[in-house]
């Protein structure tokens, strides 16, 4: 029973990371290293929060969060694709920008200093609707069916992302843009358009991740809401080897190891070692995956390099 509870907690911690990884995969598949995941999560968190408070509507909240996340990505896409600025710098700026925007606007939400802003109970109730009979099955009920709808929605979206990237024509074109934009260009693919669209889709995923943290998980506005989840997502992209399905294990592993760190605090093992565990596991797996060099597990070849047609 207690294990079911742990799985439940771990999954809820992992979902925003999973969405963040998927967002980052979209960016990198389009040949852009985007370090702005954290910033877009903050923007999504704000937009979701604002809309939830203003409209009491879950669907509007999700749409607003995705759009605002995508808006952050659009700025990044304009800077890197059209203006060809350095991707690392543009991504870092997006993180700082997104966090700043969310904090600034989030603080105006409260009207006066020291006033609390919370998600209305009406929204929380709608979000936390659960499958009636299944959730009461002993053991499995909570671990499998006990979650809010947004978690299932997220997993469905991630699976769709996998099929889209790997099994469709446009996905193939996208991968071509990420591997070799010049060749893709020569094949008649509109490189800039592909980059713009997929960077924005990535931003929408990050926005959704932020909304999950803000609206569903924490439900109180706080300036430190995301607290590094975006950066973990950036690191776990490598663990997932640019594959959204593997991102599911990656994020879960992270969630479970961080819970182990909490659970075994009373044991003789130093808590600092335990706290390192999720990061340590990530690093070890990174090493293992990079030792086994397989072509399909590698970063898209043009990642980080802006495409400039005249330089071919």
């Amino acid at each position, binding site marked *: 029973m207690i294990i079911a509870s742990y799985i439940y907690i771990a999954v809820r911690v992992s979902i925003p990371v999973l969405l963040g990884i998927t967002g980052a995969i979209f960016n990198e598949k389009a040949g852009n290293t985007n370090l702005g995941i954290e910033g877009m999560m903050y923007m999504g968190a704000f937009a979701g929060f604002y809309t939830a408070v203003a409209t009491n509507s879950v669907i509007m909240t999700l749409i607003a969060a995705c759009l605002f996340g995508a808006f952050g990505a659009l700025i990044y896409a304009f800077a890197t694709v059209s203006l060809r600025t350095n991707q690392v710098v543009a991504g870092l700026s997006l993180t700082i920008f997104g966090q700043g925007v969310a904090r600034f606007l989030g*603080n105006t939400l409260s009207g006066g*200093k*020291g006033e609390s802003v919370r998600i209305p109970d009406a929204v929380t109730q709608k979000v936390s609707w659960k499958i009636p009979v299944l959730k009461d099955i002993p053991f499995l009920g909570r671990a499998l069916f006990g979650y809010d709808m947004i978690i299932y929605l997220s997993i469905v979206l991630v699976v769709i992302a996998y099929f889209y990237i790997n099994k469709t024509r446009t996905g193939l074109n996208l991968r071509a843009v990420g591997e070799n934009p010049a060749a893709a260009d020569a094949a008649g693919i509109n490189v800039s358009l592909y980059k713009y669209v997929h960077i924005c889709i990535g931003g929408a995923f990050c926005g959704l991740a932020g909304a999950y943290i803000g609206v569903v*998980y924490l439900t*109180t506005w706080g300036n430190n*809401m995301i607290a590094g989840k975006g950066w973990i997502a950036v690191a776990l992209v490598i663990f997932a080897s640019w594959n959204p399905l593997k991102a599911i294990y990656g994020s879960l592993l992270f969630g479970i190891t961080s819970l182990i760190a909490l659970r075994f605090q*009373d044991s003789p093992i130093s808590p600092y070692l335990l706290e390192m565990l999720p990061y340590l596991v990530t690093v070890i797996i990174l090493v293992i995956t990079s030792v086994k060099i397989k072509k399909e597990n590698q970063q898209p070849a043009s990642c980080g390099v802006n495409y400039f047609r005249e330089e071919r």
Partner: protein
Amino acid sequence: MYKKMILVMVAIVMALSVFSGCTGDNDGDGDAVSKLKIGVVYIGNISEPVGFSTEHYKGIMAAAKSLGIKESQILQREEVSDNDESCKEVFESLIANGCNVIIGTSYGYGTYMNDLANDPAYKDIIFMHCSGEYKNDVNFSNFFGRMYQARYLTGIVAGLKTETNKIGYVAAVGIPEVIRGINAFTLGVKSVNPDAEVIVRWTNTWGNPSIEKSTAETLISEGCDVITQHQDTDAAQIAARENKVWAIGYHSDMAVSSKEYNLTSAIWNLEAYYEQQFTDIINGEWKPGVAYWGGIKEGVVDIAPLSDNVAEGTQAKVDEVLAKFKDGSFDVFANYEIKDQDGNVKVTADTKLTDEELLSMMWFVEGVVGTID
């Protein structure tokens, strides 16, 4: 054309600067209230609904309002890290902006405030530091609250309420301030329910709501039916409410967070303290070299009103102990047998812990489940 525009703009700037020069001096003289300029440095963000910085902000603002100090006379700097020397620049910039009273509200500012206070150039500026040990006889005092007294009272509430006899404590960082709170809370629990235990989990962060929430959820899944916290956000309270267990808040009255699952909170009440300090400054009676450590008696800390969820008889018991705190006939770490986790007797019927021992407390009392690294 351009030259003309530049000329016009220069003229406007000049004109404005003349005006701003005029407005400076019409306060008149002799009015000590309007001469006051207070600079406050916070570690956290004061626009957050609950938390340590927010409580200081509320206290300072309320005190200022009742003394007729204008909001423009208070300069505030938020989210100033206390890890390194960079905070010194923030303090100096406040002084450069004309502040004659400087308040720092985080432990780590201490050494840097001490440097500045001992700098002869700043000898006329009053320095007040919360939660540190530095002071001097010229212009520097420190202050803090005996929060452990309020913790003891909330422990009574928890001990009477728990049915599983497991109480979860989401704790930030293993320093004496936090440990003191855990110990006092546990003693409060034990005073009414000797079978109950307090399970401590460290988050090793002051304010990371996600970690705080999952920590609280782990405690709840292990059977804790009352959750309390020493953290800067209310995430543990939200976790308690979501999982339908009882919650006890800290810093601010967190009834707003845990709503129908609220029991009470251990709260700061800094308005009275700041009002007294500002009054003394205005009257020229402010004293340097003071290490003020006020408790329930002085009104610096308090227990928030109990909710309707508390067990029967809780109010009477809390009132009884509260009265003893107020008349000085009882204190948490004095005059009854207190053992540590290993069974060593730390306090007996006729000894008590000194303030120094309290300020350096690095051991848990019997009844705490958890370790200090």
